[in-house]
């Protein structure tokens, strides 16, 4: 039961991260290797508030959301927009996101040193599990992360299908050039998508210390799982990436647990499972689950 709970929490957080990855990929065409490091904005915002003002990590989610969003916009505006304007190749853009990832690694390392010097408490390695509590016999992290996903999906579909801005957003996802011709401000929808991506990752980062230890390198360590979730779901579909997250998250946690029961200690191989799933998805169904589902239902749409 404990394992299932952990798997569910992990999958929820993976979904938050991979939705962000997918959104920026479809609007700007950049596979963002810094997505994992975006999560640390949330973790460190929560940690700072906890150490300095004694605010519970759950209460700092709104601030983490805003900080992550602004960071996403900053990365887009400073690093990627100049390259997109020059019509740089996709590999160049990916190298730029690798550079951003390294800058963020340096930034969080420096910040954690700074925070340690300021508060005298460990910031280079921290975990929030002692601060967690139970609601109706469940861990709060389970309920809250599930609620966050639920809220996100509801508000995202309300935004995408219920508002004019949502129509503009979908149009610029489908075909940016055409949308621009029709009068959609593509620059604005792109900026918004980077805000959303950073904000979602940062929210996930706020929850992440309740499940695993955070170090400045965490961002680079979880990026493989994020990409696996996004690709298994078909990197061009938001709902696909939610589905992909649950598949990858559960198989990482459950499969490794079951195999380790049979063969002993191999828990370290959880990332190998996500890698294998990603490679299988890439080779057999390059459009992922979304592609498979679309093919089946294409007559109806």
């Amino acid at each position, binding site marked *: 039961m404990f394992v299932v709970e952990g798997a569910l929490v992990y999958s929820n957080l993976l979904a938050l991260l991979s939705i962000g990855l997918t959104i920026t990929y479809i609007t700007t065409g950049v*596979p963002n*290797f810094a997505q994992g490091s975006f999560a640390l904005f949330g973790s460190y915002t929560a940690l700072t508030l906890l150490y300095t003002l004694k605010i519970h990590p759950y209460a700092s989610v709104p601030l983490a959301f805003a900080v992550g969003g602004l960071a996403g916009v900053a990365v887009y505006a*400073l*690093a990627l927009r*100049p*390259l997109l304007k*020059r019509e*740089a190749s*996709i*590999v*160049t853009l*990916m*190298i*730029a996101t*690798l*550079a*951003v*990832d*390294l*800058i963020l*690694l*340096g*930034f969080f*390392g*420096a*910040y*954690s*040193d*700074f925070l340690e*010097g300021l508060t005298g408490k460990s910031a280079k390695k921290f975990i929030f599990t002692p601060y967690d509590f139970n609601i109706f016999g469940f861990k709060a992290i389970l309920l809250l992360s599930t609620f966050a996903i639920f809220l996100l999906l509801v508000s995202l579909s309300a935004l995408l299908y219920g508002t004019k801005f949502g129509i503009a957003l979908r149009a610029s996802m489908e075909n940016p050039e055409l949308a621009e011709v029709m009068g959609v401000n593509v620059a604005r929808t792109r900026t918004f998508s980077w805000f959303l991506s950073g904000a979602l990752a940062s929210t996930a980062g706020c929850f992440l210390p309740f499940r695993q230890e955070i170090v400045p390198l965490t961002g*680079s*360590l979880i*990026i*493989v799982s994020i*990409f*696996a979730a996004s*690709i298994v779901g078909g990197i061009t579909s938001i709902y696909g990436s939610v589905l992909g997250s649950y598949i990858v998250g559960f198989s990482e946690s459950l499969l490794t647990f079951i195999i380790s029961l049979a063969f002993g200690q191999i828990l*370290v*191989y959880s*990332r*190998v499972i996500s*890698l294998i799933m*990603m*490679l299988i998805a*890439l*080779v057999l169904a*390059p459009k992922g689950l979304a592609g498979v589902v679309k093919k089946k239902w294409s007559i109806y749409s």
Partner: protein
Amino acid sequence: MEHILLTILIWFGLYMIVCLSLNIEYGYAGIPNFGRAFAVLVGAFAVGGVANRLLMLIFDISNGIIEGSASVKSAMNEIMARNPAVAILFLLGTLCIAAILGAVLGAIFILPSARLSEHYLAIALLAISEVSYMVCYYNPDIIGGYYGVSTPDPLLFFQGEQRLLAFSVLTLSIATLLYGIVSKMLNSPFGRLLKAMREDEAVVEACGKDVMFLRVKACAVGSSIAAISGALYAFYTTNVIASSFNRAEWTFYPFLIIILGGLGSTNGVVAGVFLFVVVRVLLTTYKWELKSALHLPFEAVWLEYMIFGVLMLLVLIFKPEGLLREKPTMTKPIREVVKRTRKGASRQQPLTPQNTPESWHKAEKKEENSR
């Protein structure tokens, strides 16, 4: 001072080798190999994982790899101290193992490219490299995991500063040798074929060349070279620990160097490596001075990451062609053609705004229209 200079030379050699290999793969063949660290790790594995295990068999040591390596190290060092020929043989043999293992694993590593387009391939290669890094780091049975394994030291005749000198001579001579081989290879028809593949795979395929085979070849050669530098690095530190083969140092920095130097330009690689290594060694040597001088409330290593990350972005945004722009390969027939056209051009009227290829084109079109 001498120490800094020697460290710069050693790192120059090590990064030279890695960047030459990445320049074959990304600069020439256009394969976005975001998993360069993998091949370097393979080289270190050849020293810590393969050579040590072979020596354990020879010496009949039946411990785990970590304790076994320690006994292998002392036994082997003792033999090599008595017999320099064994040391040379051991060094060359291990480098050969690294090169062969690198070529084989590099060829397997690139196989997903049969089905994947450019950026999916980049993601897949990065993921493979990251995961093998993690497995090697968390599993102590491969190369000692987070404990690491120690390796015999083939340069044990030299002590202290002398060892650094000997090692820099060794690395630089291997780097020079590889530089010669690689530039020869890249100027050959094979190199031009790789460039053609980078520009347009369909054209290469239409000319009857197997693109997949070309990619496998390029990657096998590249990985084999990169593995040599991994093995050399292992001998430099005389121990192998997976955490020193991380993505930042062995994938990102080589990319930074070849983009800074100029993609596809072998001399650019030299310039890029030199600039990068000087800055990096100075940063790491004077990190304490830097920290106190700038009143940094954090370690200087984080500053290094930020500086090189920002440098990469600046190069990509403001100088994407790098320091030394790629030049066309001047083969004999091409040189003759260039000479002939230059002569021809000077005999005709010089190229003026009124007399340019575009204007000829326009004139042709006018003629067509009037017809």
